[in-house]
Protein backbone atom coordinates (compact mmCIF):
# COMPACT_ATOMS: atom_id res chain seq x y z
CA UNK A 1 0.00 0.00 0.00
CA UNK A 2 1.37 3.37 -0.97
CA UNK A 3 1.40 5.93 1.77
CA UNK A 4 -0.88 8.84 1.23
CA UNK A 5 0.72 12.20 2.06
CA UNK A 6 -2.72 13.78 2.42
CA UNK A 7 -3.47 11.45 5.24
CA UNK A 8 -0.87 12.99 7.47
CA UNK A 9 -2.52 16.34 7.11
CA UNK A 10 -6.03 15.03 6.97
CA UNK A 11 -5.68 13.22 10.24
CA UNK A 12 -3.57 15.78 11.97
CA UNK A 13 -5.72 16.91 14.79
CA UNK A 14 -4.67 19.98 16.66
CA UNK A 15 -6.75 19.22 19.75
CA UNK A 16 -5.53 15.68 19.99
CA UNK A 17 -1.97 16.89 19.63
CA UNK A 18 -2.42 19.41 22.42
CA UNK A 19 -4.11 16.81 24.60
CA UNK A 20 -1.13 14.51 24.08
CA UNK A 21 1.22 17.34 24.94
CA UNK A 22 -0.70 17.94 28.13
CA UNK A 23 -0.47 14.30 29.05
CA UNK A 24 3.26 14.21 28.48
CA UNK A 25 3.73 17.30 30.59
CA UNK A 26 1.70 15.81 33.41
CA UNK A 27 3.70 12.62 33.20
CA UNK A 28 6.99 14.45 33.35
CA UNK A 29 5.70 16.55 36.22
CA UNK A 30 4.84 13.40 38.14
CA UNK A 31 8.30 11.91 37.69
CA UNK A 32 10.04 15.16 38.55
CA UNK A 33 7.92 15.58 41.67
CA UNK A 34 8.75 12.05 42.70
CA UNK A 35 12.49 12.41 42.24
CA UNK A 36 12.53 15.76 44.01
CA UNK A 37 10.59 14.32 46.93
CA UNK A 38 12.92 11.36 47.11
CA UNK A 39 15.99 13.57 47.04
CA UNK A 40 14.56 15.86 49.69
CA UNK A 41 13.67 12.96 51.96
CA UNK A 42 17.06 11.36 51.57
CA UNK A 43 18.75 14.57 52.68
CA UNK A 44 16.26 15.31 55.43
CA UNK A 45 16.13 11.81 56.88
CA UNK A 46 19.82 11.10 56.35
CA UNK A 47 19.32 7.37 56.77
CA UNK A 48 21.55 4.74 55.18
CA UNK A 49 18.52 2.99 53.73
CA UNK A 50 17.19 6.10 52.04
CA UNK A 51 20.11 6.92 49.73
CA UNK A 52 19.77 9.86 47.37
CA UNK A 53 18.82 9.13 43.73
CA UNK A 54 22.31 9.93 42.44
CA UNK A 55 23.84 7.37 44.80
CA UNK A 56 21.48 4.73 43.44
CA UNK A 57 22.30 5.67 39.86
CA UNK A 58 25.99 5.48 40.69
CA UNK A 59 25.50 2.08 42.36
CA UNK A 60 23.54 0.89 39.35
CA UNK A 61 26.40 1.51 36.95
CA UNK A 62 29.05 0.38 39.41
CA UNK A 63 27.28 -2.92 39.91
CA UNK A 64 27.72 -3.67 36.22
CA UNK A 65 31.30 -2.54 35.98
CA UNK A 66 32.85 -3.88 39.13
CA UNK A 67 33.12 -7.51 40.07
CA UNK A 68 31.87 -8.08 43.61
CA UNK A 69 34.74 -10.01 45.12
CA UNK A 70 32.80 -11.92 47.72
CA UNK A 71 30.31 -13.05 45.03
CA UNK A 72 32.94 -13.52 42.35
CA UNK A 73 30.74 -11.90 39.70
CA UNK A 74 29.16 -8.61 38.74
CA UNK A 75 25.58 -7.70 37.88
CA UNK A 76 25.84 -9.28 34.43
CA UNK A 77 26.57 -12.60 36.03
CA UNK A 78 23.58 -12.30 38.30
CA UNK A 79 21.32 -11.25 35.45
CA UNK A 80 22.47 -14.23 33.46
CA UNK A 81 21.73 -16.57 36.35
CA UNK A 82 18.24 -15.17 36.87
CA UNK A 83 17.41 -14.94 33.19
CA UNK A 84 18.41 -18.52 32.50
CA UNK A 85 16.18 -19.92 35.21
CA UNK A 86 13.40 -17.58 34.26
CA UNK A 87 13.57 -18.42 30.58
CA UNK A 88 13.56 -22.16 31.03
CA UNK A 89 10.77 -22.14 33.62
CA UNK A 90 8.69 -19.81 31.52
CA UNK A 91 9.05 -21.76 28.28
CA UNK A 92 8.12 -25.01 30.00
CA UNK A 93 5.06 -23.39 31.57
CA UNK A 94 3.99 -21.97 28.22
CA UNK A 95 4.55 -25.27 26.44
CA UNK A 96 2.36 -27.09 28.94
CA UNK A 97 -0.29 -24.52 29.85
CA UNK A 98 -1.31 -23.70 26.27
CA UNK A 99 -2.29 -27.17 25.08
CA UNK A 100 -3.65 -28.26 28.46
CA UNK A 101 -5.69 -25.08 28.81
CA UNK A 102 -7.09 -25.23 25.29
CA UNK A 103 -7.99 -28.88 25.71
CA UNK A 104 -9.51 -28.34 29.14
CA UNK A 105 -11.54 -25.42 27.85
CA UNK A 106 -12.71 -27.33 24.84
CA UNK A 107 -13.23 -30.94 25.92
CA UNK A 108 -15.59 -31.50 28.82
CA UNK A 109 -14.13 -34.85 29.78
CA UNK A 110 -10.58 -33.51 29.96
CA UNK A 111 -11.83 -30.66 32.09
CA UNK A 112 -13.61 -32.99 34.51
CA UNK A 113 -10.48 -35.03 34.91
CA UNK A 114 -7.84 -32.34 35.23
CA UNK A 115 -9.79 -29.72 37.09
CA UNK A 116 -9.69 -31.38 40.52
CA UNK A 117 -5.92 -31.82 40.20
CA UNK A 118 -5.45 -28.22 39.12
CA UNK A 119 -7.65 -26.98 41.93
CA UNK A 120 -5.68 -29.10 44.37
CA UNK A 121 -2.35 -27.52 43.49
CA UNK A 122 -3.25 -24.05 42.34
CA UNK A 123 -4.04 -22.60 45.77
CA UNK A 124 -0.56 -23.44 47.03
CA UNK A 125 1.53 -20.31 46.45
CA UNK A 126 4.45 -21.25 44.16
CA UNK A 127 6.81 -19.63 46.64
CA UNK A 128 5.82 -22.18 49.26
CA UNK A 129 7.54 -24.82 47.13
CA UNK A 130 10.88 -23.02 47.20
CA UNK A 131 12.53 -24.85 50.10
CA UNK A 132 11.50 -28.33 49.03
CA UNK A 133 12.23 -27.72 45.35
CA UNK A 134 15.68 -26.45 46.22
CA UNK A 135 16.17 -29.72 48.05
CA UNK A 136 14.71 -32.00 45.40
CA UNK A 137 15.76 -30.24 42.22
CA UNK A 138 18.83 -28.36 43.37
CA UNK A 139 19.87 -24.75 43.06
CA UNK A 140 19.33 -24.48 39.32
CA UNK A 141 16.26 -26.57 38.61
CA UNK A 142 14.60 -25.75 41.93
CA UNK A 143 13.96 -22.08 41.10
CA UNK A 144 13.14 -23.11 37.53
CA UNK A 145 10.38 -25.34 38.83
CA UNK A 146 9.05 -22.58 41.07
CA UNK A 147 8.85 -20.23 38.09
CA UNK A 148 7.22 -22.97 36.11
CA UNK A 149 4.45 -23.25 38.69
CA UNK A 150 4.18 -19.49 39.05
CA UNK A 151 3.61 -19.00 35.33
CA UNK A 152 1.68 -22.19 34.67
CA UNK A 153 -1.42 -21.63 36.78
CA UNK A 154 -2.36 -18.06 35.85
CA UNK A 155 -1.71 -18.85 32.22
CA UNK A 156 -3.83 -21.99 32.39
CA UNK A 157 -6.71 -20.16 34.04
CA UNK A 158 -6.63 -17.45 31.41
CA UNK A 159 -6.54 -19.87 28.52
CA UNK A 160 -9.49 -21.82 29.90
CA UNK A 161 -11.37 -18.60 30.62
CA UNK A 162 -10.67 -17.41 27.08
CA UNK A 163 -11.90 -20.59 25.47
CA UNK A 164 -15.04 -20.55 27.58
CA UNK A 165 -15.87 -16.93 26.88
CA UNK A 166 -15.97 -17.15 23.10
CA UNK A 167 -19.13 -15.39 21.88
CA UNK A 168 -21.83 -18.01 21.42
CA UNK A 169 -23.19 -16.42 18.18
CA UNK A 170 -19.75 -16.74 16.58
CA UNK A 171 -19.59 -20.41 17.45
CA UNK A 172 -23.12 -20.82 16.14
CA UNK A 173 -22.22 -19.12 12.88
CA UNK A 174 -19.12 -21.26 12.38
CA UNK A 175 -21.03 -24.44 13.11
CA UNK A 176 -23.70 -23.65 10.54
CA UNK A 177 -20.91 -23.28 8.01
CA UNK A 178 -19.81 -26.80 8.72
CA UNK A 179 -17.01 -26.25 11.19
CA UNK A 180 -16.23 -29.44 13.06
CA UNK A 181 -14.56 -29.36 16.48
CA UNK A 182 -11.09 -29.05 15.06
CA UNK A 183 -11.80 -26.21 12.64
CA UNK A 184 -13.99 -24.47 15.20
CA UNK A 185 -11.00 -24.62 17.40
CA UNK A 186 -8.47 -23.39 14.85
CA UNK A 187 -10.55 -20.67 13.25
CA UNK A 188 -12.77 -19.33 16.00
CA UNK A 189 -11.67 -20.35 19.45
CA UNK A 190 -7.94 -19.94 19.09
CA UNK A 191 -8.03 -16.48 17.45
CA UNK A 192 -10.57 -15.40 20.02
CA UNK A 193 -8.40 -16.71 22.86
CA UNK A 194 -5.20 -14.94 21.84
CA UNK A 195 -5.85 -11.79 23.88
CA UNK A 196 -6.64 -13.94 26.91
CA UNK A 197 -3.45 -15.93 26.42
CA UNK A 198 -1.50 -12.70 26.22
CA UNK A 199 -3.12 -11.40 29.40
CA UNK A 200 -2.22 -14.67 31.06
CA UNK A 201 1.34 -14.34 29.86
CA UNK A 202 1.60 -10.79 31.19
CA UNK A 203 0.28 -11.85 34.59
CA UNK A 204 2.50 -14.91 34.45
CA UNK A 205 5.56 -12.79 33.72
CA UNK A 206 4.87 -10.67 36.76
CA UNK A 207 4.41 -13.69 38.99
CA UNK A 208 7.40 -15.39 37.42
CA UNK A 209 9.72 -12.53 38.34
CA UNK A 210 8.31 -12.51 41.80
CA UNK A 211 8.96 -16.22 42.12
CA UNK A 212 12.54 -15.99 41.00
CA UNK A 213 13.28 -13.13 43.36
CA UNK A 214 11.69 -15.04 46.22
CA UNK A 215 13.48 -18.28 45.32
CA UNK A 216 16.83 -16.56 45.09
CA UNK A 217 16.25 -14.80 48.38
CA UNK A 218 14.96 -17.80 50.28
CA UNK A 219 17.48 -20.23 48.91
CA UNK A 220 20.12 -17.53 48.63
CA UNK A 221 22.33 -19.91 46.69
CA UNK A 222 23.48 -19.91 43.11
CA UNK A 223 23.36 -16.15 42.64
CA UNK A 224 20.85 -14.18 40.65
CA UNK A 225 19.50 -10.66 40.95
CA UNK A 226 17.17 -11.62 43.80
CA UNK A 227 20.13 -12.94 45.69
CA UNK A 228 22.04 -9.76 44.90
CA UNK A 229 19.27 -7.64 46.41
CA UNK A 230 19.14 -9.81 49.49
CA UNK A 231 22.90 -9.85 49.84
CA UNK A 232 23.29 -6.09 49.38
CA UNK A 233 20.64 -5.46 52.00
CA UNK A 234 22.18 -7.92 54.41
CA UNK A 235 25.53 -6.14 54.32
CA UNK A 236 23.85 -2.75 54.50
CA UNK A 237 24.79 -1.44 51.07
CA UNK A 238 21.33 -0.14 50.39
CA UNK A 239 22.12 1.82 47.23
CA UNK A 240 23.21 -1.44 45.63
CA UNK A 241 20.06 -3.10 46.86
CA UNK A 242 17.95 -0.43 45.12
CA UNK A 243 20.10 -0.81 42.02
CA UNK A 244 19.31 -4.53 42.06
CA UNK A 245 15.61 -3.77 42.38
CA UNK A 246 15.89 -1.44 39.39
CA UNK A 247 17.57 -4.21 37.41
CA UNK A 248 14.74 -6.62 38.21
CA UNK A 249 12.21 -3.97 37.21
CA UNK A 250 14.01 -3.43 33.91
CA UNK A 251 14.10 -7.16 33.24
CA UNK A 252 10.40 -7.31 34.01
CA UNK A 253 9.62 -4.43 31.67
CA UNK A 254 11.78 -6.03 28.99
CA UNK A 255 9.98 -9.36 29.08
CA UNK A 256 6.57 -7.70 29.11
CA UNK A 257 7.74 -5.59 26.15
CA UNK A 258 8.72 -8.71 24.24
CA UNK A 259 5.35 -10.27 25.00
CA UNK A 260 3.53 -7.16 23.75
CA UNK A 261 5.61 -7.23 20.59
CA UNK A 262 4.68 -10.85 19.97
CA UNK A 263 1.05 -10.02 20.72
CA UNK A 264 1.01 -7.28 18.12
CA UNK A 265 2.64 -9.51 15.52
CA UNK A 266 0.14 -12.25 16.25
CA UNK A 267 -2.80 -9.88 16.18
CA UNK A 268 -1.67 -8.53 12.86
CA UNK A 269 -1.34 -12.02 11.44
CA UNK A 270 -4.73 -12.96 12.80
CA UNK A 271 -6.22 -9.70 11.58
CA UNK A 272 -7.47 -8.72 15.04
CA UNK A 273 -7.46 -5.01 15.69
Amino acid sequence: MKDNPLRIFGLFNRERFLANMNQTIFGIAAIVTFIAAWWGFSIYLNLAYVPSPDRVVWAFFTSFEKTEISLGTNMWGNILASLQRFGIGFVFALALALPVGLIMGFIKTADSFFKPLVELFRPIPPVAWVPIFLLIFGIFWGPVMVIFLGVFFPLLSNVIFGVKSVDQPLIDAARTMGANRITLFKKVIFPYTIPFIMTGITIGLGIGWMCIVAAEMIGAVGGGVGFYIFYSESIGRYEFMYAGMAVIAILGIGTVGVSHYVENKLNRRMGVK
Partner: protein
Amino acid sequence: MQPAASTNKKIIYWTQIAPVQQKAALLAGTVDGAVGWEPYCSDALNDGTGSVVVWSDQVWPEHPCCVIAVRYSDAFPNNPADNQLVARVVKANMVATNWIVQTINAGSGTNYTSLIQMGAQFSGIQASVVQSALGHIEYSNQLTPAVKAAFANFTGMFADLGQISNLAGYPNTTAFANAITNTSYLAMAPDIQPSATILGSVHLGYLNGDLHQFARVVAMNTSLWGGKTLFQDYGVNVTSPAPYANGGAVMDGFAAGSIDMGYLGCPPAILKRINANIQIQIVSLVNSEGSAIIGKTPINSLSQLEGKIVATPGPASIQHLLLLYYCNLNGYQLKLKGT
Protein backbone atom coordinates in the same frame (compact mmCIF):
# COMPACT_ATOMS: atom_id res chain seq x y z
CA MET B 1 14.47 -30.33 79.13
CA GLN B 2 10.79 -29.81 79.69
CA PRO B 3 8.75 -26.77 78.84
CA ALA B 4 7.95 -24.56 81.75
CA ALA B 5 4.57 -25.22 83.28
CA SER B 6 1.78 -23.49 81.43
CA THR B 7 0.87 -21.59 84.58
CA ASN B 8 4.15 -19.76 84.13
CA LYS B 9 3.16 -16.38 82.75
CA LYS B 10 6.72 -15.12 82.32
CA ILE B 11 7.08 -14.92 78.55
CA ILE B 12 9.95 -13.83 76.36
CA TYR B 13 9.12 -13.41 72.67
CA TRP B 14 11.41 -14.38 69.86
CA THR B 15 11.64 -13.60 66.22
CA GLN B 16 13.94 -14.83 63.49
CA ILE B 17 16.54 -12.36 62.25
CA ALA B 18 19.84 -13.34 60.66
CA PRO B 19 22.79 -12.41 62.92
CA VAL B 20 24.15 -10.10 60.25
CA GLN B 21 21.04 -7.94 60.65
CA GLN B 22 20.58 -8.22 64.39
CA LYS B 23 22.46 -5.05 65.23
CA ALA B 24 20.37 -3.02 62.81
CA ALA B 25 17.25 -4.54 64.32
CA LEU B 26 18.42 -3.61 67.82
CA LEU B 27 19.13 -0.08 66.66
CA ALA B 28 15.81 0.23 64.91
CA GLY B 29 14.06 -0.95 68.06
CA THR B 30 12.52 -3.91 66.26
CA VAL B 31 13.89 -6.20 68.97
CA ASP B 32 15.31 -5.67 72.44
CA GLY B 33 17.61 -8.63 72.51
CA ALA B 34 19.45 -10.98 70.18
CA VAL B 35 21.26 -14.24 70.18
CA GLY B 36 23.79 -14.76 67.41
CA TRP B 37 27.26 -15.82 66.43
CA GLU B 38 30.50 -13.92 66.18
CA PRO B 39 31.46 -11.42 64.91
CA TYR B 40 27.93 -10.04 65.05
CA CYS B 41 27.75 -10.26 68.85
CA SER B 42 30.91 -8.20 69.18
CA ASP B 43 29.67 -5.86 66.49
CA ALA B 44 26.68 -4.95 68.63
CA LEU B 45 28.68 -4.94 71.87
CA ASN B 46 31.66 -2.87 70.74
CA ASP B 47 29.83 0.33 69.96
CA GLY B 48 27.53 0.02 72.94
CA THR B 49 24.41 -0.89 71.06
CA GLY B 50 24.18 -4.11 73.02
CA SER B 51 25.22 -5.47 76.38
CA VAL B 52 26.02 -9.06 77.24
CA VAL B 53 23.33 -11.09 78.93
CA VAL B 54 25.31 -14.30 78.79
CA TRP B 55 28.03 -15.87 76.65
CA SER B 56 27.37 -19.37 75.40
CA ASP B 57 30.35 -20.85 77.21
CA GLN B 58 28.93 -19.57 80.48
CA VAL B 59 25.89 -21.75 79.89
CA TRP B 60 27.56 -24.72 78.21
CA PRO B 61 31.31 -24.62 78.80
CA GLU B 62 33.32 -25.87 75.83
CA HIS B 63 30.18 -26.61 73.82
CA PRO B 64 30.83 -27.65 70.24
CA CYS B 65 29.44 -25.40 67.57
CA CYS B 66 30.34 -25.67 63.89
CA VAL B 67 31.51 -28.91 62.28
CA ILE B 68 32.60 -30.23 58.94
CA ALA B 69 30.25 -32.87 57.60
CA VAL B 70 30.66 -35.15 54.64
CA ARG B 71 27.95 -36.62 52.51
CA TYR B 72 27.72 -40.36 52.29
CA SER B 73 26.20 -41.97 49.27
CA ASP B 74 26.84 -44.94 47.06
CA ALA B 75 29.09 -42.73 45.03
CA PHE B 76 31.07 -40.79 47.58
CA PRO B 77 33.27 -41.38 49.47
CA ASN B 78 33.28 -45.11 49.02
CA ASN B 79 36.75 -45.77 47.80
CA PRO B 80 40.23 -45.04 49.07
CA ALA B 81 40.75 -42.17 46.63
CA ASP B 82 37.68 -40.30 47.85
CA ASN B 83 38.57 -41.02 51.43
CA GLN B 84 41.91 -39.44 50.72
CA LEU B 85 40.22 -36.30 49.44
CA VAL B 86 38.07 -36.00 52.56
CA ALA B 87 41.07 -36.54 54.78
CA ARG B 88 43.02 -33.90 52.89
CA VAL B 89 40.25 -31.33 53.28
CA VAL B 90 40.16 -32.13 56.98
CA LYS B 91 43.92 -31.79 57.09
CA ALA B 92 43.92 -28.42 55.28
CA ASN B 93 41.22 -27.18 57.65
CA MET B 94 43.33 -28.35 60.54
CA VAL B 95 46.43 -26.55 59.25
CA ALA B 96 44.43 -23.36 58.74
CA THR B 97 42.93 -23.67 62.20
CA ASN B 98 46.33 -24.06 63.76
CA TRP B 99 47.58 -21.06 61.82
CA ILE B 100 44.63 -19.00 63.14
CA VAL B 101 45.17 -20.11 66.71
CA GLN B 102 48.89 -19.30 66.52
CA THR B 103 48.24 -15.95 64.91
CA ILE B 104 45.66 -14.99 67.51
CA ASN B 105 48.03 -16.06 70.27
CA ALA B 106 50.77 -13.93 68.72
CA GLY B 107 48.36 -11.01 68.92
CA SER B 108 50.22 -8.83 66.42
CA GLY B 109 52.41 -8.88 63.33
CA THR B 110 51.68 -9.00 59.58
CA ASN B 111 49.90 -12.34 59.85
CA TYR B 112 47.66 -10.94 62.56
CA THR B 113 46.89 -7.85 60.50
CA SER B 114 45.96 -9.87 57.45
CA LEU B 115 43.90 -12.28 59.57
CA ILE B 116 41.86 -9.40 60.91
CA GLN B 117 41.52 -7.97 57.42
CA MET B 118 40.32 -11.28 56.01
CA GLY B 119 37.75 -11.50 58.77
CA ALA B 120 36.56 -7.98 58.15
CA GLN B 121 36.16 -8.54 54.44
CA PHE B 122 34.45 -11.91 54.80
CA SER B 123 31.92 -10.72 57.36
CA GLY B 124 31.62 -7.10 56.27
CA ILE B 125 32.44 -5.90 59.79
CA GLN B 126 35.06 -3.45 61.09
CA ALA B 127 38.50 -4.82 61.89
CA SER B 128 38.30 -3.84 65.56
CA VAL B 129 35.13 -5.87 65.93
CA VAL B 130 36.71 -8.89 64.30
CA GLN B 131 39.57 -8.53 66.73
CA SER B 132 37.37 -8.81 69.79
CA ALA B 133 35.20 -11.47 68.18
CA LEU B 134 38.16 -13.75 67.74
CA GLY B 135 38.64 -13.64 71.48
CA HIS B 136 35.29 -15.37 72.02
CA ILE B 137 35.67 -18.20 69.56
CA GLU B 138 37.48 -21.38 70.47
CA TYR B 139 38.99 -22.83 67.27
CA SER B 140 39.71 -26.56 67.55
CA ASN B 141 39.21 -29.67 65.42
CA GLN B 142 39.31 -32.76 67.59
CA LEU B 143 36.12 -34.75 68.06
CA THR B 144 36.84 -35.61 71.67
CA PRO B 145 34.57 -37.76 73.84
CA ALA B 146 33.35 -34.55 75.45
CA VAL B 147 32.33 -33.23 72.05
CA LYS B 148 30.49 -36.47 71.28
CA ALA B 149 28.80 -36.27 74.65
CA ALA B 150 27.68 -32.75 73.79
CA PHE B 151 26.25 -34.05 70.48
CA ALA B 152 24.37 -36.68 72.44
CA ASN B 153 23.16 -34.05 74.86
CA PHE B 154 21.87 -31.82 72.04
CA THR B 155 20.15 -34.79 70.46
CA GLY B 156 18.39 -35.44 73.74
CA MET B 157 17.24 -31.85 73.91
CA PHE B 158 15.81 -32.03 70.41
CA ALA B 159 13.93 -35.16 71.41
CA ASP B 160 12.55 -33.37 74.45
CA LEU B 161 11.49 -30.46 72.29
CA GLY B 162 9.68 -32.78 69.95
CA GLN B 163 11.76 -31.68 67.00
CA ILE B 164 12.83 -35.28 66.46
CA SER B 165 10.75 -38.35 67.13
CA ASN B 166 13.32 -41.10 66.69
CA LEU B 167 17.06 -41.68 66.78
CA ALA B 168 17.50 -42.95 63.24
CA GLY B 169 17.35 -46.48 64.54
CA TYR B 170 19.96 -46.13 67.26
CA PRO B 171 19.10 -47.26 70.78
CA ASN B 172 20.11 -44.07 72.58
CA THR B 173 21.53 -40.63 72.03
CA THR B 174 25.08 -41.74 72.79
CA ALA B 175 24.96 -44.47 70.19
CA PHE B 176 23.57 -42.00 67.69
CA ALA B 177 26.26 -39.42 68.48
CA ASN B 178 28.93 -42.04 68.04
CA ALA B 179 27.43 -43.19 64.76
CA ILE B 180 27.38 -39.78 63.15
CA THR B 181 30.88 -38.85 64.22
CA ASN B 182 33.69 -40.32 62.19
CA THR B 183 37.12 -39.66 63.62
CA SER B 184 39.00 -41.72 61.08
CA TYR B 185 39.85 -38.76 58.87
CA LEU B 186 41.19 -36.78 61.80
CA ALA B 187 43.25 -39.85 62.59
CA MET B 188 44.63 -39.93 59.06
CA ALA B 189 45.50 -36.24 59.11
CA PRO B 190 48.86 -36.25 60.88
CA ASP B 191 50.35 -38.44 58.16
CA ILE B 192 49.12 -36.38 55.22
CA GLN B 193 51.67 -34.27 53.39
CA PRO B 194 51.16 -31.52 50.80
CA SER B 195 50.75 -32.86 47.30
CA ALA B 196 52.43 -31.54 44.18
CA THR B 197 49.56 -32.65 41.99
CA ILE B 198 45.83 -32.14 42.25
CA LEU B 199 44.24 -35.42 43.24
CA GLY B 200 40.62 -34.47 42.79
CA SER B 201 38.00 -31.91 43.57
CA VAL B 202 35.41 -31.42 46.27
CA HIS B 203 32.27 -29.26 46.34
CA LEU B 204 32.32 -27.50 49.67
CA GLY B 205 29.43 -25.59 51.26
CA TYR B 206 29.66 -22.90 53.93
CA LEU B 207 27.61 -20.21 55.64
CA ASN B 208 27.37 -16.55 54.81
CA GLY B 209 29.67 -14.34 56.95
CA ASP B 210 30.07 -16.82 59.80
CA LEU B 211 33.42 -16.19 61.47
CA HIS B 212 33.18 -19.59 63.15
CA GLN B 213 34.13 -21.01 59.79
CA PHE B 214 37.17 -18.77 59.52
CA ALA B 215 39.49 -21.68 58.77
CA ARG B 216 37.92 -22.13 55.36
CA VAL B 217 38.41 -18.45 54.56
CA VAL B 218 42.04 -18.63 55.60
CA ALA B 219 42.58 -21.83 53.64
CA MET B 220 41.09 -20.28 50.53
CA ASN B 221 43.33 -17.21 50.72
CA THR B 222 45.98 -17.83 48.06
CA SER B 223 48.34 -15.08 49.19
CA LEU B 224 49.05 -16.93 52.43
CA TRP B 225 49.96 -20.25 50.83
CA GLY B 226 52.25 -19.39 47.99
CA GLY B 227 49.76 -18.60 45.26
CA LYS B 228 47.39 -21.51 45.76
CA THR B 229 44.74 -22.34 48.28
CA LEU B 230 45.68 -24.48 51.19
CA PHE B 231 43.30 -27.11 49.86
CA GLN B 232 45.18 -27.13 46.56
CA ASP B 233 48.36 -27.37 48.51
CA TYR B 234 47.01 -30.64 49.84
CA GLY B 235 45.95 -31.75 46.38
CA VAL B 236 42.25 -30.85 46.45
CA ASN B 237 40.46 -28.39 44.19
CA VAL B 238 37.67 -26.89 46.25
CA THR B 239 34.67 -25.27 44.58
CA SER B 240 31.75 -23.71 46.38
CA PRO B 241 28.30 -22.56 45.41
CA ALA B 242 27.22 -19.20 46.82
CA PRO B 243 27.22 -19.24 50.62
CA TYR B 244 24.25 -20.90 52.30
CA ALA B 245 21.93 -18.93 54.57
CA ASN B 246 21.80 -21.53 57.34
CA GLY B 247 22.81 -25.05 58.27
CA GLY B 248 19.50 -26.50 57.11
CA ALA B 249 20.25 -25.24 53.62
CA VAL B 250 23.72 -26.85 53.75
CA MET B 251 22.05 -30.13 54.60
CA ASP B 252 19.70 -29.65 51.65
CA GLY B 253 22.81 -29.09 49.56
CA PHE B 254 23.99 -32.53 50.63
CA ALA B 255 20.64 -34.08 49.83
CA ALA B 256 20.48 -32.44 46.42
CA GLY B 257 24.02 -33.54 45.68
CA SER B 258 25.21 -29.95 45.22
CA ILE B 259 28.02 -30.36 47.74
CA ASP B 260 30.19 -33.20 49.01
CA MET B 261 31.38 -31.58 52.21
CA GLY B 262 30.21 -28.60 54.18
CA TYR B 263 30.69 -26.35 57.17
CA LEU B 264 27.61 -26.05 59.34
CA GLY B 265 26.40 -25.95 62.91
CA CYS B 266 25.95 -29.28 64.65
CA PRO B 267 22.19 -28.83 65.44
CA PRO B 268 21.01 -28.75 61.82
CA ALA B 269 23.33 -31.65 61.08
CA ILE B 270 21.70 -33.70 63.84
CA LEU B 271 18.14 -32.61 63.07
CA LYS B 272 18.27 -33.28 59.38
CA ARG B 273 20.31 -36.43 59.71
CA ILE B 274 17.40 -37.85 61.69
CA ASN B 275 14.34 -36.18 60.23
CA ALA B 276 15.29 -36.07 56.58
CA ASN B 277 17.48 -39.15 56.72
CA ILE B 278 20.25 -37.28 54.94
CA GLN B 279 23.29 -39.49 55.12
CA ILE B 280 26.14 -37.44 56.54
CA GLN B 281 28.90 -37.90 59.03
CA ILE B 282 30.69 -35.32 61.09
CA VAL B 283 34.37 -35.61 60.32
CA SER B 284 35.84 -32.63 62.13
CA LEU B 285 35.02 -29.99 64.66
CA VAL B 286 35.45 -26.40 63.49
CA ASN B 287 34.97 -24.40 66.64
CA SER B 288 33.34 -24.33 70.01
CA GLU B 289 31.70 -21.50 71.91
CA GLY B 290 31.47 -18.05 70.27
CA SER B 291 27.76 -17.22 70.66
CA ALA B 292 26.01 -14.88 73.05
CA ILE B 293 22.67 -13.58 74.19
CA ILE B 294 22.79 -9.81 74.23
CA GLY B 295 20.32 -7.16 75.20
CA LYS B 296 19.85 -3.69 73.86
CA THR B 297 21.83 -1.47 76.23
CA PRO B 298 21.15 -1.11 79.13
CA ILE B 299 19.46 -4.54 79.17
CA ASN B 300 21.97 -7.06 80.47
CA SER B 301 19.93 -9.78 82.11
CA LEU B 302 17.23 -12.20 81.08
CA SER B 303 14.71 -10.78 83.50
CA GLN B 304 14.92 -7.41 81.75
CA LEU B 305 13.92 -9.16 78.52
CA GLU B 306 10.61 -10.35 79.94
CA GLY B 307 7.77 -9.50 77.60
CA LYS B 308 10.27 -8.24 75.03
CA ILE B 309 11.45 -9.64 71.71
CA VAL B 310 14.72 -11.46 71.14
CA ALA B 311 16.11 -12.07 67.66
CA THR B 312 17.48 -15.55 66.92
CA PRO B 313 18.96 -17.06 63.77
CA GLY B 314 16.09 -19.53 63.72
CA PRO B 315 14.82 -22.51 65.68
CA ALA B 316 17.20 -24.97 64.03
CA SER B 317 20.29 -23.13 65.24
CA ILE B 318 22.44 -23.74 68.28
CA GLN B 319 21.87 -20.12 69.27
CA HIS B 320 18.12 -20.67 69.40
CA LEU B 321 18.67 -23.78 71.45
CA LEU B 322 20.86 -21.75 73.78
CA LEU B 323 18.19 -19.13 74.26
CA LEU B 324 15.49 -21.74 74.78
CA TYR B 325 17.62 -23.61 77.28
CA TYR B 326 18.61 -20.48 79.16
CA CYS B 327 15.03 -19.24 79.30
CA ASN B 328 13.82 -22.55 80.68
CA LEU B 329 16.63 -22.61 83.17
CA ASN B 330 15.44 -19.26 84.48
CA GLY B 331 11.76 -20.04 84.38
CA TYR B 332 10.78 -18.19 81.23
CA GLN B 333 8.67 -19.41 78.38
CA LEU B 334 9.80 -18.62 74.85
CA LYS B 335 7.06 -17.67 72.43
CA LEU B 336 7.09 -16.75 68.77
CA LYS B 337 6.22 -13.07 68.36
CA GLY B 338 3.04 -12.39 66.45
CA THR B 339 1.35 -15.72 67.12
